[in-house]
């Protein structure tokens, strides 16, 4: 079923929140830090405030509770003591038009005394480096071992060690954050894209010291998110400014502001050691990871949780250890991003396995196949039992059966001139939902009218993936109704019961389950009452249901009290990908010729949407693998716009063959589970494996730029 707004999106007529206009509306702009680290000595707003057309100029002291989260490390709404990143917000301006607002924002005079910059996460924890927060530069740490890893590695026949790195990726959602806020009778309505309307309501209520019920977020339509609209401060800026100005305020970020101040994927330095027996059985893995979260905590420690859990991949690992740290620096703030800490560690693990296959003289598919987790097996690090719905072996088999993998030697032999050819394969696994011990839940509300027309309010929100259409399909199926007679609304915090984030591959699984549950309730009541008109008459036409994501039944090695600290998953999805490409051995250019993406998605409720997610994931994965990297020099961004931060164009993305490996996830709605994140994960290591196949050198850093590739070849 196509997305409801598909046509409007494609022809460009859809009204996004930044297209909204209100009578008497003002325009907002942000004064941002020009330097990566410094002590704020003074902020002088007199000149800006005196400019004709300026209606409000706010600094940190004007925000009732100047914090974006419960702790200091969540960062201020507006920096007032210290700036810790280029682009950090210092003042907000509202004026009669956008040009005036921006000029006034520039006219705010900020006197800053520069402080030494913490630019290298590898030295961020040394005592001589300045502390970015009172508690030091360690934002989070996870250390866990399921046994004596050193002994297991010592006993292994082959041990592969890899030291790798991955870059800071930018989300590049088409729509930069923006929207409108309006105060009426002590209550604020904010039209602003969000992946987590509930969280944003709490942020606004905290900052303005108002009741949560006085904050309404209408979070869409959203022009893409990919994680960037989770920690985004824009709804808070809008609300604060509209209150101070006493008028509706409109604001939008430019692409340049997004590049400097928006979140990025956490860059990682990762070391892995993987041991095998000579027969190719996995013996142990030991991974050390260092993540750079930038100046504030945002999603750092949570990202590290999924890194830890997925550090053993979809494999039966007899013993494993993970030692991860996430540190503060003056680099770009990193936040949630599709894959959430998994692409970084999967790159380390999968390229190590690929190298092990070469060292053992084994086929990389065969080597993986003999070590794969089967549904019901225990997790290598935490020892909990995984869902029987996992179809890792079928997924790998599907990818490996594709002609692009089967004919890889013919492809290689047909290489001409300086263009070398190679093919690579890689796998990945990713948990669905926030994980055990986190109280993860989604809710849905349903109302019927006398004619049997059904309205459903459900979350998580639609941020581009047409999740609302899937909710409608599920409802139609459960109720045996024509989908045309069902209306689904998402994203409005006043109407949709709290359902958590559009994140963690949970929307279909959690939101879909809540929709199915509320429909079941309605169906039962309908049968009992004898028709919708009767339900309306009885005043029983409204229903609500909550779906609690199941925790692991047996937490394995995790102390039950610490379940939420590790948040292991019961349900996982996986993906296996094949990449075939050409490498120019003199210029280092890489041309990807094709990608096979097999994805274990449970039941594909809307196959068109699943394929869309798979293709988008691969395209974004190719960007991460080959060209996308937000670069800084001493905390100052070098990649400042889409002219110098490159993402793949339609020409760079080859044919993608998506293979849906359908199955039945027993805990999911109609057997479905989440799949939109895992599809970005294998692309990087599969590209690296293909490059190694083509030129014999295994890349150690993503993105594999032509420069890095040629340096490796020399």
């Amino acid at each position, binding site marked *: 079923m196509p997305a409801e707004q598909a046509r409007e999106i494609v022809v460009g007529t859809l009204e996004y929140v930044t297209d909204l206009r209100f009578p008497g509306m003002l325009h907002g702009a942000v004064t941002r830090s020009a330097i990566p680290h410094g002590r704020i000595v003074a902020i002088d707003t007199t000149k800006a405030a005196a400019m004709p057309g300026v209606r409000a100029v706010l600094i940190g002291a004007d925000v009732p509770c100047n914090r974006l989260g419960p702790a200091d490390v969540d960062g201020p709404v507006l920096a007032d003591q210290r700036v810790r990143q280029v682009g950090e917000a210092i003042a907000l301006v509202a004026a009669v038009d*956008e*040009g005036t607002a*921006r*000029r006034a924002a520039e006219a705010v005079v900020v006197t800053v005394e520069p402080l030494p910059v913490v630019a290298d996460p590898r030295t961020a924890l040394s005592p001589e480096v300045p502390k970015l927060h009172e508690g030091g530069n360690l934002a989070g740490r996870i250390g866990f071992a399921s046994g004596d890893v050193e002994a297991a590695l010592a006993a292994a026949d082959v041990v592969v060690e890899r030291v790798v790195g991955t870059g800071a990726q930018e989300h590049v959602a088409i729509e930069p954050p923006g929207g409108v806020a309006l105060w009426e009778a002590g209550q604020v309505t904010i039209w602003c894209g969000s992946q987590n309307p509930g969280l944003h309501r709490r942020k606004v209520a905290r900052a303005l010291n108002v009741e949560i019920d006085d904050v309404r977020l209408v979070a869409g339509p959203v022009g893409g998110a990919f994680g960037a609209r989770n920690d985004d401060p824009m709804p808070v800026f809008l609300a604060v400014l509209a209150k101070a100005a006493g008028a509706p305020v409109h604001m939008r970020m430019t692409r340049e502001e997004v590049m400097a101040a928006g979140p990025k994927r956490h860059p990682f330095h990762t070391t892995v050691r993987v041991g095998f027996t000579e027969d190719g059985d996995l013996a142990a893995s030991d991974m050390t990871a260092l993540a750079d979260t930038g100046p504030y905590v945002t999603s750092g420690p949570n990202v590290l949780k999924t890194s830890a859990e997925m550090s053993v991949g979809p494999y039966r690992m007899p013993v494993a250890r993970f030692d991860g740290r996430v540190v503060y620096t003056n680099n770009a703030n990193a936040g949630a991003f599709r894959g959430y800490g998994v692409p970084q560690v999967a790159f380390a693990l999968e390229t190590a396995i690929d190298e092990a296959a070469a060292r053992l003289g084994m086929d990389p598919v065969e080597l993986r196949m003999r070590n794969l987790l089967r549904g019901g097996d225990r997790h290598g690090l935490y020892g909990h039992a995984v869902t029987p719905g996992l179809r890792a072996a079928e997924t790998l088999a599907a990818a490996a059966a594709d002609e692009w993998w089967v004919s890889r030697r013919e492809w290689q032999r047909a290489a001409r001139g*300086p263009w070398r050819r190679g093919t690579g394969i890689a796998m990945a696994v990713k948990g669905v939902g926030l994980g055990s011990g986190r109280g993860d839940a989604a809710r849905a509300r349903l109302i019927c009218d006398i004619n049997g027309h059904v309205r459903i309010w459900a979350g998580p929100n639609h941020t581009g993936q047409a999740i609302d259409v899937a909710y409608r399909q599920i409802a139609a199926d459960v109720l045996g109704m024509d989908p045309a007679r069902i209306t689904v609304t998402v994203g409005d915090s006043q109407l949709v019961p709290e359902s958590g984030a559009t994140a963690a591959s949970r929307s279909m699984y959690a939101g879909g389950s809540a929709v199915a549950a509320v429909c079941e309730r309605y169906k039962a009541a309908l049968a009992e009452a004898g028709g919708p008109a009767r339900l309306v008459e009885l005043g029983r036409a409204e229903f609500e249901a909550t779906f609690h994501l199941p925790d692991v039944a047996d937490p394995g090695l995790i102390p039950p009290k610490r379940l939420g600290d590790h948040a292991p998953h019961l349900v996982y999805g996986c993906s296996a990908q094949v990449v075939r490409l050409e490498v*120019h051995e*003199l*210029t*280092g*250019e890489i*041309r990807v010729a094709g990608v096979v993406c097999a994805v274990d998605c449970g039941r594909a409720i809307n196959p068109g949407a699943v394929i869309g997610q798979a293709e988008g994931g691969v395209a974004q994965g190719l960007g991460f693998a080959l*060209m996308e990297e937000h*670069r800084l020099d001493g905390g100052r961004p*070098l*990649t400042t716009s889409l*002219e*110098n931060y*490159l993402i*793949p*164009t*339609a*020409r*760079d993305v080859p044919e993608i063959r998506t293979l849906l490996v359908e199955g039945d996830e027993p805990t999911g709605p109609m057997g479905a589970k989440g799949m939109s994140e895992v599809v970005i994960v294998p692309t990087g290591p599969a590209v690296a494996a293909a490059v190694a196949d083509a030129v014999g050198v295994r890349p150690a850093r993503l993105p594999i*730029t*032509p*420069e890095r590739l*040629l340096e490796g070849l020399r």
Partner: protein
Amino acid sequence: MPTTGFTYLRPLTVADLIRDLAEPGAFALAGGTDLVPLRAAGAITPAVLVDVKHVAELRGVETEGDAIRIGAATTLADLGERDGRSLDAILDGAKIVGAAQTRERATLGGNLCRSSPAGDTLCGLLVLDAVAELQSLDGIRHVPVRDFFTGPSRNVKKPSEALVSIRVPVREGGSAYRRFTYRRSMDLAVVGVAAWLSIEDGVCVNAAIAIGAVAPTPRLVPAAAETLVGTTCDDEAIAHACEHVVAASSPIDDVRGTRDHRLRVLRPLTRDTLLLALTRALGSSPP
């Protein structure tokens, strides 16, 4: 964010065009694909925008005696559809600028006047010995493109001068332009090379090579061309030419690419470009 207004003028004749351009703060506006982003970034603040696209003399491609005359406001999309063998190196560049939408608006004159070291038609204009026709209230002057550039984004054209046409002599031989980029479209040249070769009885009798994005301006490398004259453009001769090209370049490190990488790419790119020009000169269809 532009904060000042401007006057928009749309002359229909060259006489009006040069009168309008004589106004203080006047800028010619062709496709606007450079001018609009530059203005948005605050790099220029035009007081008057003089739209050049509606002056008939500035549009179209015609043969005039022993030269081809290209109106300065001819779009790259229009050029790209033409099949003028003697313009190959220019057309190769015109066809890869930006994306289809960019090329519908972008003009050849705009590319020349912008004078970016990475401009994709500029190396082709150099090797094909193009001549720019500039007009102002002071009169007409004809400036060979090889004397046009004075530095990055700088040239000899005065603000009051309109670029009216670009003349390319019709000559024997084959030409080509190739660039290296990090992605396959919508990217600016990290290195660009154009070549023109005239071959008689299998021997090179005349040649030109130009390089882009590796020096402050696009520039000819006469020493490289000379090594080819009198040879059959065999591997050895081409290797020699490549050495001269590398010697003549002075690339920098910037966010778009490192000096080292530009130097590494220059050699194979020069070679590929020469081979394509040679194939074209020999009259066979390109590979």
